[in-house]
């Protein structure tokens, strides 16, 4: 049973990352399901007799109900356009972090549209490329802004050099 996943980040926002970063994730729930010997995540004991179910089941149900049945497609399509325009405007003002938030909203909105089957195969490619373009722009802008500040998180001179190469 896999309980961890190791991911390399060679490219982020279409920029090569040097050195290549990696992320390790642990399936805490999976590990717990073995330790507690339960089959469903909802049967896990969170603590003091409180189950995962007691905390997460209702939100899960509500989100599913919304995402698959109650979401308003027309509204979501408008949201996507508004979030995209906002992200672009913020990028123009070098407000990297709020721009990034709006890009995440675009991505989330796309997922909601996709869940309803509202996006045809052809349109799908279009939406994905819009999100990808934004991700690239925000990545470029982020590196620019950090560079202006001399890459404050890179302390040694050699590291700074590597950081410039990123741009």
């Amino acid at each position, binding site marked *: *049973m896999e309980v961890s996943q190791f991911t*390399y980040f*060679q490219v982020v926002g279409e920029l*090569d990352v*040097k*050195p*290549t970063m990696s992320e390790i994730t642990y399936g805490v729930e999976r590990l717990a399901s*073995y330790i507690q010997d339960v*089959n469903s995540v909802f049967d896990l004991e969170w603590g003091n007799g409180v189950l995962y179910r007691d905390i997460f089941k209702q939100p899960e149900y509500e989100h599913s109900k919304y995402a698959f049945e109650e979401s308003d497609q027309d509204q979501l399509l408008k949201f996507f356009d508004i979030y995209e325009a906002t992200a672009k405007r913020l990028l123009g003002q070098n407000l990297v972090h709020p721009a990034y938030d709006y890009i995440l909203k675009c991505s989330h909105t796309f997922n909601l549209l996709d869940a309803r*089957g509202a996006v*045809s*195969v*052809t349109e799908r490619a279009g939406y994905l490329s819009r999100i990808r373009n934004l991700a690239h722009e925000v990545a470029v802008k982020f590196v620019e802004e950090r560079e202006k500040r001399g890459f404050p998180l890179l302390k040694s001179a050699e590291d700074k050099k*590597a950081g410039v190469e990123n741009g």
Partner: protein
Amino acid sequence: MAKDYLFEIGTEEMPAHVVPRSVKQLADRTRKFLKENGLKFKDIKTFATPRRLTILVEDLAEKQDDIDEVKKGPAKKIAQDADGNWTKAAQGFARGQGMTTDDIYFEEIKGTEYAYVHVQKEGKKATDILLGMSDIIKAMTFPTKMRWDSNDFEFVRPIHWLVSLFGSDVVPVKILDITAGRKTQGHRFLGDSVVLANADDYEDALKDQYVIANAEERKDMILNQMNELVKKNHWQVKPDRDLLEEVTYLVEYPTVFAGSFDEKYLNIPDEVLITSMKDNQRYFEVYDENGKLINHFIAVRNGNKDYLDNVISGNEKVLVARLDDAQFFYDEDRKYPLSHFVDRLKNVSFHDKIGSMAEKMQRVRMIGDYLAKRWGLPENVVKDFDRASELYKFDLVTQMVGEFAELQGVMGMHYARLAGEDEEVAVAIKEHYMPATAEGPLPETTVGSLLSVADKIDTIVTFFGAGMIPTSSNDPYALRRYAYGIVRILLNQKWSLPFNEVLPEIINMLNGVTPAKLPKGDADQEIADFIRDRVKQYLQKNNFKYDIVDAVLASSQQDPSQILAAANVLQLHHDDAEFKPVVESLTRIDNILKKSKFKGNVEIDESLFDDNSEKELYAGVQNLQKVESLADLYQGFVQLQPVIDQYFDTNMIMAKDEKVKNNRLAQLYAVSELADRLGDLSKLVIK
């Protein structure tokens, strides 16, 4: 003295499908490298696991052969000018031998002096040459590569260690900051690192560390353990070759085990269960003694038998989660009538530049109806085809096919059955994707064959119409495979289809009816040729003699079944005694017609005959024109051959009288037209 050379590239886990071809690539590149460097060896063995690509070069020479040769160069008068200076030619000769002009001396042969050098070179040591293995690593190609650390260098996965041993000596090949040594790594969880004294110790030393380096041995272990389990439980298993191969390269130390799932999931179609097990989990499905799929599976662990029960229950748990999903999709899809899915096909794109699936289905129906009429197919076939053409892509928008794309067609069949559609309709929905590979199985039913042919013709016509025409090296939409599928189905169903005639009619019929762009101008003939090229592929694949293939394809015949029939006749009689005279007589006719540039635009006038042989040939040709089967036509030619020869013997074809000449040529032209039904016989190689 020759010794074995071991070279191992140790990596992070590689994708299974990349491993076998990469180790082959490593061996091929090494073989070439050693040959280019003049290092003799016996053979190269390969070992491969997810974490290592290894070669063992057997009996590799310790050094290159020494060179001790006298090389002859240009004549002295070319090597030196009048003043005794070395010419460019002399300099080039010396440099080519790795020497300088100082090394040149002259010797006389038959009165002429020639330049010579005595080349003596000690062969380089293998241990020096083998340092170049780093260039082989750098040259290797992979479908996907990755960078790691701060390197620009890319490999399929990060390299962690190198072993490079010539006999017992380390050859310190370097790549990045890794220097090859004698230490290899055992199984990630069960083994330790091992220091190898000798190249030959490799396989056994790794076995002690729970690594079976030999892929064939691992595969045999898997099959043997699998057979044991199957025998014990009275099951059957039909191990999928690709899956077996994949699993072999997913593990370093295989242990086979069986698991099970709740019987309640057996209500889901077999194909779904198999896909859930195979594609997601790499499990082998299991059948009972009667061949019925049962609620067990067989899987392979990368490890030994320790805590195997835990592993089994873990695998069962993951599978159940998958099966729950499949059950959910199956239940959801069945809540709707087929029309619900068909309606949504308006919004499903067949291709951006062509249009929707709904539009495609309309065209396919028209094409199929046209073909059915042409072939005189019975009414019930047409009725079932029409129904199938209204439905056949609907499963693309079901949840099940959304999750398991490879079940397209199969799910359509199951859902159509459940919706009470005729069996013929349901099966045709599945069969229209066939053949799924070039030589894959063909549709078995008439309706399925018709739907498959119509669907594929539509695909080719609309792709050509939209300008997406395959080139010799690039065929991203597999149009060649579709065309080959059409040819195979036509031959299988004995359906005649002269494409040069049919395609313009189909394009005409669709014109104005569909928004898709259609081929214009000569494009229909281009498509006809494109399909005819696949007939060639078919004949070659089915072992027809190459000259017969050339001959039948050079005829003006466009109908694959007629071309095949001609090839069959020629192949059958190729070695008969009469074959040679018949072909020679018929080619003689063609040659005369070619020379005379006769266009065939003259009616034969019997009143101009003045010899019996002319009358005989005329009668013979008239009889043959009534013959339908090519086998009978060939037999007719066998009988006509003496008549033709007689005709040539007694008549001057190129008569002085223009009228008589044209009349005689017209007779020959009639024979030639008949012969063309078999092919261009001048292409045949007659012994």
